């Protein structure tokens, strides 16, 4: 894969030729094909989906349902109706926490998460647990930044109703062994919810092979527009679940006092969906399929290896996360005594776009013993030169902040 060639598909790099964009884990840039699919849809094919019996609305409906099928294919399921469109991974997780909570959680039950979760895969479970009198337990991580599998087995012994964990950590880069975790969890009787926000953009995903029950994605992190993400679940489980958002489009019969609801996926898409953005997201999935997810994944890991090697040469720099093959293109680091924001501002002023803070993972940062880290993340349009530039600017930062370092 030649990232230099792919780069030309991304207009933002024409507008900012010197930009070293290492913040794709927060949100990815968009290829021309996605922006054009979106614009073309609004220019030539726009009308509200469903319920319109004129050709423009029929065509828009078809485009929306074709987008659902494309996303289903991208995630490895033949059944488009297993895909529900939500705004972002966070809304997906809220939908699941609400619906699974209503259906399966009771007094004294346990929801199992992990210490490396993004707040999106933690706070919604806290809310559901509080409503239902259940409690949250978390699988700890090892000093290498991997899940502690011995502790997992102990915790599964408590028979959690739900085990929700991330496919890939947005701070450590750790890729969890999803299939193995799902199998253990299923044996313990838990429903398996996988946070694929960082997984789906970077790894070949087949939800059935992973053995997940639900798989959450974040569209804007996988080259899609903001506003649309695919949430996958097993048909049999969707059928069991009560709705989350209610209103138009998802009902069967409504009186002033009460309502009955449509079957999935309609039941979970209340009101006018972000259907134009769903069409844009399908263009993104097609772009990724065209490049090949195996090649994306290989490229990410090559850059990561190079970055880990180069960053290990920067004096005083602490680099987080595992060293090994089970690691994606996210590298977080810190100079002791230099706050993450100050370091990120330095990098940003040198044209290297990174992110700093707790990256929506406060419990993990507490475990790492730091309040904040600075994070670089890679994607298919990043080059080896950019990784080298990151390392060079970190050497510069080391000199600039020399007297701060503790």
């Amino acid at each position, binding site marked *: 894969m030649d990232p230099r060639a792919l780069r030309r598909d991304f207009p933002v790099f024409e507008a900012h030729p010197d930009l070293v964009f290492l913040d794709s884990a927060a949100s990815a840039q968009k290829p021309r094909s996605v922006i054009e699919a979106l614009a073309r849809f609004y220019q030539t094919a726009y009308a509200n989906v469903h319920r319109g*019996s004129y050709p423009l609305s029929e065509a828009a409906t078809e485009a929306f349902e074709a987008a659902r099928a494309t996303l289903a294919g991208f995630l490895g399921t033949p059944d488009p109706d297993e895909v529900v469109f939500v705004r972002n991974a966070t809304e997906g997780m809220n939908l699941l926490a609400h619906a699974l909570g209503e259906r399966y959680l009771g007094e004294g039950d346990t929801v199992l998460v992990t210490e490396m979760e993004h707040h999106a895969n933690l706070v919604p479970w806290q809310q559901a647990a509080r409503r239902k009198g259940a409690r949250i337990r978390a699988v700890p991580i090892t000093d290498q930044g991997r899940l502690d599998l011995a502790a997992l087995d102990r915790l599964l012994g408590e028979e959690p109703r739900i085990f929700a964990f991330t496919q890939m950590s947005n701070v450590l880069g750790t890729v969890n062994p999803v299939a193995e975790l799902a199998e253990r969890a299923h044996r313990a009787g838990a429903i398996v919810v996988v946070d694929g926000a960082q997984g789906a953009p970077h790894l070949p995903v087949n939800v059935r092979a992973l053995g997940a029950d639900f798989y959450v994605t974040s569209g804007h992190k996988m080259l899609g527009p903001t506003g649309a993400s695919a949430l996958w679940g097993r048909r049999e489980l969707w059928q069991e679940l009560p709705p989350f958002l209610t209103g138009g489009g998802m009902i069967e019969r409504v009186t002033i006092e009460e309502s009955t609801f449509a079957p999935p996926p309609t039941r979970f898409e209340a009101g006018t969906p972000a259907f134009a953005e769903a069409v844009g997201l399908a263009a993104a999935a097609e772009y990724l399929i065209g490049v090949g997810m195996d090649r994306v994944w290989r490229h990410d890991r090559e850059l990561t290896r190079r970055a880990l090697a180069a960053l290990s040469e920067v004096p005083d720099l602490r680099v987080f996360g595992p060293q090994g093959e089970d690691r994606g293109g996210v590298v977080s680091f810190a100079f002791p005594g230099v706050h993450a924001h100050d370091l990120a501002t330095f990098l940003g002023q040198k044209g290297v776009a990174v992110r700093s803070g707790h990256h929506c993972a406060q419990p993990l940062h507490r475990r790492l013993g730091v309040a904040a880290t600075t994070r670089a993340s890679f994607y298919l349009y990043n080059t080896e030169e950019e990784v080298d530039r990151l390392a060079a600017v970190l050497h510069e930062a080391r000199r600039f902040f020399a007297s701060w370092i503790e």
Partner: protein
Amino acid sequence: MGILEDLYQEIILTRYKNPRRRGRLENPTRTAGGHNPACGDQLELFVELDGDRIRAVRYQGEGCAVSQASADLMAEAVEGKTVAEARDLAERFKAMVVEGAPPDPALGDLAALSGVARLPSRVKCATLAWHALEEALS
């Protein structure tokens, strides 16, 4: 023939206004509900089985000419058929209205609904009763 003339043939109107199988069965062997969330059409289906054979079919509900005529023609067409034969007919009907296949001779009067294939938003109206039938027979 224009799409409109093609769709709204005399037989559709006749069945909409003067249905032959509309109503309910007192002691149905099977019942099923159909609902088109996109437009609110609703249908209740009553099936009386004699072993493996469909003895009678009736339906109730609310819907457009397409959905009502489709239900009425379907009810008539499957009476006397075995469950397997009825399922087979459902496949042929869906091939015609969903995929736009030319009407299978076995469909008889149901061929009048072939124009629906050219109107994607009306496909669900035409298939509503058939989905309910498949559910009732499953």
